[in-house]
């Protein structure tokens, strides 16, 4: 069986108990959770009482934001406490001792504010008067937009932008926004907002305000409004524009607020047993709650708070507790003490004042007491205002617990022009200020009227998230204080009338939420932080170590340095750069100066394809600096080795070009040799000739060879009929007459022997004489002449080939008379001769090939069937033989050897003609030829040897 922890004192109680056995706080919520929990509250809707007990059972899911319109869920702020950054917790812990100071100082400074709220108080920088942790509230309000999601989710998930500012003054005090939750605690009146005067119309007597964001009112607050449908208590809250439509309260605070929904109505406020959410109550709050319950009765709230706070409560809470000490004269129970949340009722002061002390008498004393906080004065004023000028104020849906404020402070509020600004200030904060300034009357007007300016003057150095967090935390802390305040404040209005049971939310409020009440010190220290740091760290969930380790003192020092404009960060960065990081710096950073100098001298192209390149084109017109060209020597630079090589080459060339005098190889005169050769030849030719004439034996035997023409000449001549004209051409020179006469002798013998008519003609001038000479020397001529036959010497045929042609064509026209001047062609047998072909044969005796060719070529076409025979010298055979081979010549006899053969064949001519001239020449010819051959051979051999010896001798001498 589980026990129930008292939400106020935190002690365990049996489950069956409805009130804490220790502190008397209600353990079970009065209201149940309505069915339409998720319904949103519309403007004009009546508040519905809801039980927030079930909300307590809802596990707070970290990071799960609550959407608009969703039912508030119970959130365990203890978990949030753990979720807070360590640095924040550390700061809170470390700042606790100073918190009392920070709270005490503003009170000392604001010791002389005007106690009456009717007079407008000049704007005053809230940052000056407020403690540090409160300044964070201002900034958080101005920078709510930068609240991180996680924090926004904690706050209910609504964006600040969706919360329109009811006041014309756009610079809504952050304190107001932070105090909205408290305003909602009082049940934000919706209809009254439209009826009341806005805050900027504070000069007006009507302190009404227009709560624009009615939709933004959280459900828990709506549920809170439902029980307080009576428009009395909410009048004071309804006049506060800050309450309108601002749902900036953090989730934890929502959960804090939701808890009282199930709690008992304010009726149990004074008695305030531990609320349902007492288990989440932090220790300090527990101690705070337990202190009055255990140590003092509720009546001794102010006195009993000191020993309680001396034990465990933080300093700021001590200050909160100390504040009522000044107001110990105040009535113990405020008029609306029944409407206070249970956790507030659990506070020592509240419990002390609410339960034993009657509420009716307290406002008078409280209003007249100087030590009474200002917010109580405002409450008085506010409460008086509706009574005077705003009759509808009591019709507004004000929470019941606030209705006591209205009743108590109706009169002063009617005449206070500063009520409007005071409405923007959370009531609890106003109370705080009033409390914090022990000497000051705690004029809420002066404190909150300056908030707009202070909001504008607030330094935005702190991170928004931090500020918001601080704000939330401070708001939570203030909530705890607010409970005290409410415990203190209520006497004025609440004492005059009964407000009925406390709203449900008050019964469900868990005192555990104000755990973050230590943050104000940090807020005050970081108010000068630069905004850049805020933005950088705004969304970081995990706070860096340096930040977590940063003490408030360090933060203040750093902020002071930054304020002085010292460039500390740069210096620190350069000094703290590790060596390994410096080693990793690029080389360009080291040699940057050098490269920069080089690059400066080069022009970078800015256009074209070379754009971006540096130094690719000359920066100067032309090709460069104009300067005088260097003078180079035209003299060839030659080394010693090259000179030696050149000299060697020159010597070689000179040696080659020098005419080399060749040694004359003068042969001996060889005149003797010539004579010797001539003698040998003469002897060789002469001796056989002599011997032949003497009919001695033949030295050379007869030849056995056959004629080259195979006897054609002999056969043709032999075949010539008798008395036919035969043309014999004597075209040889006298030099070769010896050979030709010897060669032609057998042929002429045969012709003469045949008794043919010979017509002699010659194309050579000496031919006719040679012809005569030949015929005269031939042995058979005599016989021929003697027989009556005459030959005709046609003489010389001039013109060469032309003469031959002419003679061939017209022999009678070419040669009309013979050598003796006698006409040739008129006598018989020559009369028949008209043309060359009329000759029976043409025998050409020539030693010249050309002459023989002329006869063949010129006379050949005119020969017809007349054979042409040719007796030629041996030297002309190579040139004439082709014609014989071609058939143009019918017979060919060349040289003495063939003549010898031909002569040997003329056996019919007689032995004389058979062994005629050729026979005589045959031996001489043979011997002379042999001797010549031997001389040539011998001479060549001797000559070669002699020359070889001479060359060998020369070579030996040269070597």
């Amino acid at each position, binding site marked *: 069986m589980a026990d129930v922890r008292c939400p106020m004192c935190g002690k365990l109680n049996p489950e069956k108990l409805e009130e804490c056995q220790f502190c008397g706080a209600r353990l079970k919520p009065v209201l149940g959770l309505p069915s339409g929990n998720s319904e949103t509250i519309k403007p004009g809707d009546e508040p519905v009482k809801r039980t927030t007990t079930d909300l307590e059972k809802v596990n707070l899911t970290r990071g799960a934001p609550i959407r608009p319109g969703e039912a508030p869920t119970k959130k365990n702020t203890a978990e949030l406490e753990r979720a807070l950054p360590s640095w924040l917790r550390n700061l809170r812990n470390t700042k606790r001792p100073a918190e009392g100071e920070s709270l005490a100082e503003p009170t000392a400074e604001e010791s002389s504010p005007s106690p009456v709220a009717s007079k407008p108080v000049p704007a005053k920088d809230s940052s000056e008067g407020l403690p540090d942790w409160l300044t964070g509230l201002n900034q958080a309000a101005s920078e709510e937009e930068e609240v991180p999601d996680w924090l926004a989710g904690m706050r209910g998930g609504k964006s600040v932008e969706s919360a329109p500012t009811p006041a014309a003054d756009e610079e809504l005090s952050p304190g107001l926004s932070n105090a909205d939750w408290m305003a909602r605690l009082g049940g934000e009146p919706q209809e009254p907002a439209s009826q009341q005067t806005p805050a900027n119309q504070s000069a007006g007597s009507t302190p009404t305000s227009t709560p624009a964001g009615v939709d933004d009112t959280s459900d828990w607050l709506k549920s809170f409004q439902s029980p307080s449908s009576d428009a009395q208590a909410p009048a004071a809250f309804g006049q506060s524009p800050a309450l309108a439509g601002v749902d900036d309260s953090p989730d934890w605070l929502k959960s804090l607020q939701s808890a009282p929904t199930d709690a008992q109505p304010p009726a149990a406020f004074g008695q305030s047993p531990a609320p349902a959410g007492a288990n989440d109550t932090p220790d300090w709050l527990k101690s705070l709650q337990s202190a009055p319950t255990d140590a003092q009765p509720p009546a001794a709230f102010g006195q009993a708070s000191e020993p309680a706070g001396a034990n465990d409560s933080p300093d700021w809470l001590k200050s909160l507790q100390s504040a009522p000490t000044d107001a110990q004269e105040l009535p113990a129970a405020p008029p609306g003490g029944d409407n206070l949340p249970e956790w507030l009722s659990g506070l020592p002061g509240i419990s002390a004042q609410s339960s034993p002390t009657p509420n009716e008498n307290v406002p008078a004393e409280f209003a007249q007491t100087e030590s009474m906080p200002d917010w109580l004065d405002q409450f008085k004023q506010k409460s008086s205002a509706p009574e005077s000028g705003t009759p509808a104020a009591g019709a507004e849906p004000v929470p019941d617990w606030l209705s006591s404020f209205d009743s108590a402070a109706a009169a002063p509020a009617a005449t206070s022009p500063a009520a409007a600004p005071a409405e923007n200030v959370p009531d609890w904060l106003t109370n705080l200020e009033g409390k914090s300034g022990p000497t000051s009357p705690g004029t809420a007007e002066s404190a909150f009227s300056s908030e707009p300016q202070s909001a504008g003057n607030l330094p935005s150095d702190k991170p928004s998230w931090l500020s918001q967090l601080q704000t939330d935390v401070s708001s939570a802390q203030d909530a705890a204080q607010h409970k005290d305040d409410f415990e203190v404040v209520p006497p004025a209005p609440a004492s005059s009338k009964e407000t009925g049971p406390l709203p449900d939310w008050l019964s469900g409020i868990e005192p555990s939420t104000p755990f973050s009440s230590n943050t104000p010190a940090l807020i005050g220290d970081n108010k000068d932080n630069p905004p850049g740091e805020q933005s950088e760290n705004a969304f970081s969930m995990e706070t860096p170590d340096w930040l977590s380790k940063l003490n408030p003192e360090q933060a203040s020092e750093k902020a002071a340095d930054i304020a002085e404009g010292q460039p500390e960060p740069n210096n620190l960065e350069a000094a703290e750069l590790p060596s390994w990081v410096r080693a990793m710096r690029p080389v360009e950073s080291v040699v940057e100066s050098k490269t920069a100098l080089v690059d400066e001298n080069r022009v970078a192209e800015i256009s074209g394809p070379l754009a971006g390149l540096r130094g690719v084109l000359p920066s100067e017109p032309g090709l460069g600096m104009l300067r005088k060209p260097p003078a180079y020597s035209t003299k060839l630079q030659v080394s010693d080795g090259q000179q030696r090589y050149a000299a060697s080459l020159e010597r070689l060339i000179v040696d080659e070009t020098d005419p080399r005098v060749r040694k004359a190889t003068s*042969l001996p005169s*060889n005149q003797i*040799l*010539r004579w010797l*050769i*001539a003698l040998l*030849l003469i002897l060789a030719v002469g001796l*056989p000739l002599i011997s032949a004439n003497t009919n001695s034996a033949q030295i*050379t*035997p007869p030849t*056995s*060879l056959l004629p080259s023409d195979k006897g054609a000449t002999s056969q043709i001549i032999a075949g010539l009929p008798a008395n036919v004209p035969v043309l014999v051409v004597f075209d040889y020179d*006298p*030099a*070769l*007459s*010896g050979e030709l006469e010897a060669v032609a002798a057998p042929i002429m013998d045969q012709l003469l022997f045949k008794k043919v008519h010979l017509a002699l003609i010659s194309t050579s001038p*000496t031919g006719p*004489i*040679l012809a005569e*000479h030949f015929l005269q020397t031939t042995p058979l001529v005599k016989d021929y002449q003697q027989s009556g036959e005459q030959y005709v010497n046609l003489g010389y*045929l*001039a*013109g*060469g080939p*032309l*003469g031959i042609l*002419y003679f061939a*064509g*017209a022999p009678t*026209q070419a040669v009309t008379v013979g*050598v*003796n*001047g006698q006409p040739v062609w008129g006598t018989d047998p020559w009369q028949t001769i008209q043309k060359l072909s009329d000759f029976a044969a043409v025998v050409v005796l020539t030693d010249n090939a050309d002459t023989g*060719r002329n006869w063949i070529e010129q006379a050949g*076409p005119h020969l017809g069937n007349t054979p042409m025979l040719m007796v030629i010298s041996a030297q002309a*055979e*190579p*040139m004439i*033989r*082709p014609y014989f*081979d071609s058939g143009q010549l019918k017979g060919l006899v060349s*040289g003495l*050897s063939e003549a010898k053969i031909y002569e040997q064949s003329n056996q019919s001519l007689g032995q004389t003609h058979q062994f005629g001239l050729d026979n005589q020449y045959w*031996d001489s*010819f*043979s011997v*002379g*030829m*042999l001797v*010549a051959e031997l001389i*040539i*051979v011998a*001479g*060549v051999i*001797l*000559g*070669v040897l*002699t*020359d070889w010896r001479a060359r060998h001798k020369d070579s030996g001498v040269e070597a």
Partner: protein
Amino acid sequence: MKFKGVFSTVVAIAFGFLVLAGYLFGVNAGGTTSVMGQIQLLILNLAVTLAGFAVLVGVSNLLIVHTDKIRHKQKGALYSAILIIALLVTFLLGLLAHYDLPIAKSLFSDAFLSIQLPIETSLMALLVVTLTYASIRLLRRRMNLLSIVFLTTAFLIMVGTAPWPFLGDVPILSSLRTWITQFPASAGARGILLGVALGSLTTGLRILFGSDRPYGSGKNG
């Protein structure tokens, strides 16, 4: 081109074509000489007469030259005088012999046979000695392949031409000589003759077409 050149060219080309036509159309179908043949013979007669007269002009030029040498008493004037005398004597003997003056005939024939014939024959005989001597000195002067070939060929022809005394014909050498004269030497000679024939034909055509004018005022004239 001057008129002289044109005229001579036209005359040359005309006579050229006439002689050529005589070769082609000189003989009629009956074997008689045609007109073109007659024209050809006429032109040839003029040419032969001109050629005979040219010999007379040449003899006259020789007489003038040597007379000038005698007259100018130049070196060899004596020989020139002998030449001129021999010329005149021979010329006279020839005229006299033409008219059947017996002394003139005999003197004229003897002069030729006694002077000119032996002289020329002797010169030819000296050629044998000179050639032999040249053959001996050939290899000593220019010992190369052509010299050796030339000398060897001449030696073989000599050996093969004449039978050896007391031995007669050496069949191998005779056959070798016949082979050399009928094949290699004949081949070379035919080549030369063909070249001469082509050259003569080309020259005749060039003259016929006027491309070559050796008679003056022409390209080569």
